[in-house]
């Protein structure tokens, strides 16, 4: 076995992981930004409920979340069957389901830092924007959102990392199907569950670590550039 080049199965798991985590982030991030903004800036009835709901996937063991997803989004589940009959969209046992599971699981991790960032943005700047004629939506997009970017980036990193590593809810919801739902994390789990899987597990760990490293370094560079843009330090 070549130690340096990826085996087809590993390559498949890697690409699938990136696809799943990417898709999860793509859908979860905007939604998380909205929810975080709502939680940060508005007091509405059900505020506490929404907040608690967002955190649930973190508190409950992933198996439970996966099970709930299966019941709700499975073929015969109320949401799943509705989506399938109306949009032809099915989450059952395919990579979109894996992305859904990853998105749900990483949601609280994204919401929290984003919410903190929104809370830290000085509303006086929004006032100033409004006094210059900006509609609330415009001032959100031009002032609040850019100023909260470090937090959004931070949330995205946590979310992406979590989505990459998500295991429990994914295997429960969409099973462990090679090429379809077997991400690196699932492949790694599979390897650890076989008495002879040590080397495979080690290789997969290296791959996951490597990808995570790359993503984190990219995010750090981005964050530094962002901070410079915001803080304006020329040092």
């Amino acid at each position, binding site marked *: 076995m070549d130690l340096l080049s990826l085996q087809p199965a590993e390559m498949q798991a890697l690409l699938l992981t990136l696809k799943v985590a990417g898709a999860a982030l793509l859908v979860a991030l905007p939604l998380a930004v909205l929810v975080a903004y709502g939680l940060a800036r508005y007091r509405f009835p059900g505020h506490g409920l929404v907040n608690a709901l967002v955190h649930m996937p973190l508190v409950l063991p992933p198996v439970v979340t996966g099970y709930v997803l299966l019941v709700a989004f499975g073929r015969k589940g109320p949401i799943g069957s509705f989506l399938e009959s109306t949009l032809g969209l099915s989450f059952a046992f395919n990579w979109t389901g894996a992305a859904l599971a990853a998105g749900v699981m990483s949601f609280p991790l994204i919401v929290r830092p984003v919410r903190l960032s929104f809370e830290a943005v000085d509303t*006086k700047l929004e006032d*100033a*924007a409004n006094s210059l*004629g*900006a509609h609330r939506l415009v001032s959100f997009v031009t002032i609040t959102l850019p100023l909260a970017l470090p937090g959004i980036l931070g949330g995205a990193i946590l979310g992406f990392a979590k989505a990459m590593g998500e295991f429990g809810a994914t295997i429960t919801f969409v099973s462990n199907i090679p090429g379809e739902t077997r991400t690196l994390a699932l492949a790694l789990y599979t390897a650890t569950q076989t008495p002879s899987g040590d080397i495979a597990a080690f290789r997969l760990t290296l791959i996951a670590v490597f990808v995570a490293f790359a993503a984190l370094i990219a995010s750090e560079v981005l964050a530094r550039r962002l901070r410079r843009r915001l803080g304006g330090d020329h040092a």
Partner: protein
Amino acid sequence: MLDVDITGRIGHLDLEARFSSDGGVTSLFGQSGAGKTTLTNMIAGLITPLSGRIAVNGTVLFDHAKGIDLPVRDRRIGHVFQDARLFPHMSVRTNLTYARWAGRRKSTRDFGEVVDLLGLDDLLDRKPPTLSGGEKQRVAIGRALLSDPRLLIMDEPLANLDQARRNDILPYLDRLCGEAGIPILYVSHSIEEVARLSTTLVILSGGRTPAYGPVADMLARTDLGRATGRHEAGALLEGKVARLDRQWGLTHVDIGGSFLQIPDLEAEIGTPVRLRIRARDVSLAVTPPEGLSIRNAFGAHIVSITEESGPYAEILCEVGGQTIRARITRASVHDLNLAVGKPVTVLIKSVAIDKRQRTPVPPVPA
């Protein structure tokens, strides 16, 4: 033009403000903590008053009784905040044009002109966090000027600026107010600035507005000493440019039969002007003096003498139907035997009436 009659509350301060002004520059004058910023915030719509009514140029911005509360963005108020509030992530240029691209406000004012006025050319590509205190303040002024406002609120906009820059900006505000007809609500601690710029002066004290009115009347009032700052008391003289003396750089102003010589004023003959004569710049003589460098000597008679406990006395004199205020020592009042009705010569140094003391009379819009 600007009608305010509201009550409100911030922290432990009850605000109860009522004034109206006929456009031009309305100055809000009061001690630190008097509620000036709070009042401007209510007019701007950032704080909701408890009750009352606010109208600008006939447009009702707020009317508690009628349930009107125009959103901030629709009030079209150019607001120079006491704490600049620049957008830290945008360049100075983007900050300046924010109202245009984000607020869809019209480009009524020329960008280059404002940039020149405020000396921002070299700063356009910089980010606010790297600006000096005065630079921030100038950008904030520019941003408000470029927002096509129907009212300009300026909360101590010149506090961190040097005299040269102030001298550039003040005439511009004059013009803005005069030519473009944009009323200005101006918060300042400097009675100089207030007198130089305002049509109407509103005194704010402990959240209340004990007095407001045309700036000339207000500055002539002796009961507002503490609020307007004792030593800078003075009076306003209205006049018309009568002659331009190019040789000596002097302008002769007709103040009702008498002529006042002041350092060069770029104005056409016939233009009405307003001169602020500070009480401490005025001397009195019992006989018309000779061989004096003081160029302006007018026959007058004493209208009132207010002696105070300190060394000072305030003398109001009438010159050609207008009032001039003089501040001299009680000792001199005694030595010269001054009394009400007595004819005296009022002496005013020409150099005392510098640029900051005079202004074209703001055309008061109907």
